[in-house]
């Protein structure tokens, strides 16, 4: 908007638009949002690790064993601890926002609460995780 002159010729500045830079640092709610979004980087890195793994697997036993050795390195262990934290934060924030993304669910004439949806999500995630680990352990016997 161009600066306007009023009748007495005084310069009038246009409506002031405030800059957005650093917006997410100015409110704890937004900081938590950014933490939630940064967990996507953990998912991306892990997908990349698996991609490398699958490539090495297709290149024969020596290549595969090289990848297994790399996974044993301190750097990889530290990375995977960070990725594990990222995944746990992802699970938490995914189910935290899930009720907002859903149409109301009516059970027995009442709307299912957001807390109930979040708890259900978490429970399913824990059950699936335990089952996956159990399956892995069982597959070794």
């Amino acid at each position, binding site marked *: 908007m161009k600066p306007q002159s009023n009748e007495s010729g005084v310069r009038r500045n246009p409506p002031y638009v405030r800059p*957005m830079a650093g917006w997410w640092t100015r409110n704890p709610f937004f900081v938590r949002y950014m933490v939630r979004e940064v967990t996507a980087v953990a*998912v*991306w890195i*892990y997908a990349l*690790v698996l991609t490398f793994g699958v490539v090495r697997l*297709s290149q024969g036993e020596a290549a595969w064993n090289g990848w297994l050795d790399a996974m044993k390195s301190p750097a990889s262990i530290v990375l995977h601890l960070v990725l*594990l934290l990222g995944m746990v934060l992802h699970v938490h924030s995914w189910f935290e926002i899930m009720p907002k993304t859903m149409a109301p669910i009516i059970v027995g004439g009442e709307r299912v609460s957001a807390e109930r949806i979040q708890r259900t999500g978490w429970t399913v995630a824990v059950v*699936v995780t335990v089952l996956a680990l159990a399956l892995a352990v069982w597959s070794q016997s």
Partner: protein
Amino acid sequence: MKKRSNAPFFWLMFGAGGMLSALLGTALVFITGLATPLGMVLKPDFMAYGRMMAFAHNFIGKGFVFVVIALFAWHAAHRIFHSLHDVGIHNGTVAKLLCYGSALVMTVVAAYSLLRIGF
């Protein structure tokens, strides 16, 4: 006439990948990145070449690995692209190519490698 967005496709991939990684991401990172290398809970030969090839030879094993890599990659790419916008990196085309491009590369490379392993 407002232009229709093509976001729905990427959003569905984001949703599927987000749900899959929420349910399985923790277990998979633990199994492949911590338990097996450290011989914790699982034996260190859990992912030995013979066992992994047996898993990857069959359809279900191949499908599982492919779906995990692809959905995780597309989910992450979609979110990272939007996060770049959130922190002020707006160059749409370059950001899109880097984010979705990396997901495409991982998808194609994973598919190729899995097929190369054979049946």
